[in-house]
């Protein structure tokens, strides 16, 4: 098994501003993100030989992409994998290029959550299947409640009282908002204090409004090509080192041995990615990471699940500032889901956009020093039965 490492390169990316884009349609967002990506790659849309669209709620079938872009009878595929949908689009595009089926492929992720009038993200159960309970009963717990199950158990296992636990989570919000305040594309560009976060209204104990990511609209796009052709397009292509995805089978929801203090899919997905990219010491080798901070407790667990902090000791790294912009391993340098919100189909590609810019040294005030490898991470589905995708990019071959 060879893996994807150094076979495919990203030569162009685009990302819209995220937020409450009342005056933009899904089609507008697709056109804006794709146009920026093509311009960045120095190609025209007609050069694209195959395309992938990732969206959960904002479109059905490939025509949701071919129609706004007026793609001319090329192969187009629509993919959906909950919160990992955006990453799923580039996985399809990159694999097609690696297989030699095409030389230039487009991946677009889009979601407009603000057109529904609902708070949060709607459930995705369809009649006859269920992500929880039975197909007949269609139980729905809100996403913050699902993640609060982790917080309760993590606090319990590591003997953090709710005040201390909430304070540690608040530090993550404060960090991500600081990063977001430096990013003109973020939905939220304001700094917040630990006190504000801790006093915010509770949505699912112990998680409050400011422990939760926003609800936003947005789109992002990437153009990929063969690694050996990448320099024909630009001097600083970014190489794909791994495209890992680990999918649970609801083991944790049905078996008593799952501890609700880690996410198994995070562990499996990241180890798969490190192996494919040839990474042995992730905390040292990674220059930065964009992770799925849908709720603060999840970012805290990710530090441990992805092998950066020892089990139960994320606290020490939060307190030491390890994951801040100037820390040892900056995490969510663009502000994360916390500041971008989570338009499901777009998020994975939005994260890649930040890693791509960082690795090219074009991240402005947020630029990390001397970057070599960057990681993106998404988690979708339900806890105890999730979908985790981990992508690693690098700015040089080998």
């Amino acid at each position, binding site marked *: 098994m060879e893996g994807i490492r150094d076979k495919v390169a990203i030569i162009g990316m685009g990302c819209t501003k995220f937020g409450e884009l009342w005056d933009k349609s899904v089609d507008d967002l697709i056109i804006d993100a794709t146009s920026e990506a093509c311009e960045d790659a120095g190609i025209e849309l007609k050069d694209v030989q195959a395309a992938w669209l990732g969206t959960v709620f904002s479109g059905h079938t490939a025509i949701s992409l071919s129609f706004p872009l007026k793609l001319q009878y090329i192969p187009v595929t629509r993919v959906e994998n909950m919160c990992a949908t955006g990453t799923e689009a580039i996985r399809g595009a990159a694999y097609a290029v690696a297989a030699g089926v095409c030389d230039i492929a487009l991946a677009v992720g889009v979601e407009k959550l603000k057109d*529904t*009038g*609902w*708070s*949060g993200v*709607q*459930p995705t159960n369809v*009649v*006859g299947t269920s992500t*929880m*309970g*039975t*197909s*007949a*009963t*269609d*139980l*729905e*717990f*809100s996403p*913050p*409640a*699902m993640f*609060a*199950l*982790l*917080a*309760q*158990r993590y606090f*319990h296992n590591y003997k953090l009282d709710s005040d201390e636990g909430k304070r540690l989570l608040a530090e993550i919000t404060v960090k991500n908002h600081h990063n977001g305040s430096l990013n003109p594309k973020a939905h939220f560009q304001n700094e917040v204090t630990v006190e504000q976060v801790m006093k915010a209204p*509770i*949505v*699912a*104990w112990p998680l409050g409004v400011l422990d939760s990511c926003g609800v936003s609209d947005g789109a992002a796009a990437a153009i990929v090509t063969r690694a050996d052709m990448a320099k024909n397009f630009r001097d600083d292509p970014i190489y794909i080192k791994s495209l890992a995805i680990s999918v649970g*089978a*609801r*083991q944790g*929801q*049905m*078996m*008593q041995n*799952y501890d*609700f203090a880690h996410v198994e899919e995070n562990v499996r997905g990241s180890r798969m990615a490190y192996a494919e990219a040839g990474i042995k010491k992730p905390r040292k080798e990674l220059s930065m990471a964009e992770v799925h901070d849908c709720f603060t407790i999840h970012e805290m667990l990710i530090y441990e699940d992805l092998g950066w902090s020892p089990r139960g000791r994320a606290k020490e790294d939060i307190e030491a500032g390890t994951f801040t912009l100037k820390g040892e391993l900056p995490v969510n340098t663009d502000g994360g889901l916390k500041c971008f919100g989570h338009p499901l189909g777009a998020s994975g590609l939005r994260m890649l956009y930040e890693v791509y810019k960082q690795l090219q040294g074009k991240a402005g005030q947020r630029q990390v020093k001397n970057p070599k490898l960057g990681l993106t991470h998404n988690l979708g589905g339900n806890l*105890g039965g999730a979908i985790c995708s981990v992508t690693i990019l690098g700015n040089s071959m080998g």
Partner: protein
Amino acid sequence: MVGITSVGAYVPIYRLSRDEIARIWGTRSLGGEKAVAKHDEDSITMAVAAALDCMQGSQQVNGLFLATTTSPYQEKQAATIIAAATELPRETHTADCTNSLRAVTVAMKSAIDAVLSGSAKNVVIIASDCRMGWGKSEFEQLLGDGAAALTIGNSDGIASIEGSYSLFSELLDVWRPEGEVFSRSWEGRFIMSKGYMDTMQRLISGIMEKYKLTPANFAKVVFYGPDSRSHANLAKHLGFDLRTQVQDTLFDAIGNSGAAALPLMLVAALEEARPGDRILLASYGDGGDAFIIRVTENIREIQEKQKLKELLLRKIYIGYPKYLNWRDLVPIEEPRRPEPRTPSVTCLWRERRSVLAFYGNRCKQCGTVQYPPQRICVNCQAKDYAEDYRLSDKKGHIFTYSVDYLTSSKDPPVVIAAVDFEGGGRVMCEVTDCEPDKVEIGMAVKMCFRKLGQRGGIYNYFWKAAPVL
């Protein structure tokens, strides 16, 4: 030979004080409190709880009769849902006895006849009601929710049935026309004298004459009363001693629970009875049915548990606004979430055993219990090598939980939990009948049958966890 072989009771945990209702309306309080079914309860869910309480033994049941005036469906039997939830054999004869406050004794009479004729060995009768009065009315204060069950069998059981007597009476004293939710009544003085008092005096003196008995021959008399005063007046008229012979109506603790009122009173009487006691039981509603029962030595078995007393001890008080919300009396803005879809009848049918009787399965290779039942084992991946496994009767505890303010619910917050069962198995489910700030990791829970909601005219029932008190 025919007797009552077991009894069961269910009273919702929630109470609304009559002082609270009177305070809201500026009216006089009748005193005491009423039991209020939560928004996830109705006559069917309460009946399932009472039936499970009643059927804890392993007796063979041939019939299940539900007595109620508040079936969620006008066209569709409710007894079948209860039979499916309690896992009765397919050949069980099911029936709904409805439309009358004496529906429960109508069912009893049929069951007694079936047992005496030999067509059935054991028939479970469940009475369950959830009636409502107009705002500000006396009914609003008086009516409470509850359920009781008893098994009529071909043995003396805990009380043998020694005689019966019935009569009908045509008089509109209390009624509810089609399409209305509140019980109506005619002018009080008339219906008390010509309805309740007249009929009950004839009924009770009728059964005593038939069997040549006098009030002195009874240790206890258990008869329906529309309210406490009329109940006491009738006892006095008939010559029963209020203090020693007359079973309390439970109106102070539960309220008038309609079709369930009389069997709940009977359970209360049996929890106090001595072997050899003769009890007169009499219902009222469009006439009346009276029975003479004799308590046996076996009564001690049920007295060890004192089920009803336990039920009356556990309670959570609610305010009037919650009552209005739970009974759909005021439209409430729900969280801004998509409406749950109409349940698929096809899916409900296909998964009836896992949904209604709460069956998972257990892998025969590795022993892993899983819910919902899986064809390929979640632990060892053995294919099609599992046996059905009932989880509704297993003890559980909360492994982790959250208090969800965002999910669509009639009354947020909703407590959600991962529940681990003794003997294996984990489910993700809602925790009901709890005070959210008192839930904790490790808390003991049991499963209970509840209503998730109604969409497209389909009532969707499923199991939830509730703290064991």
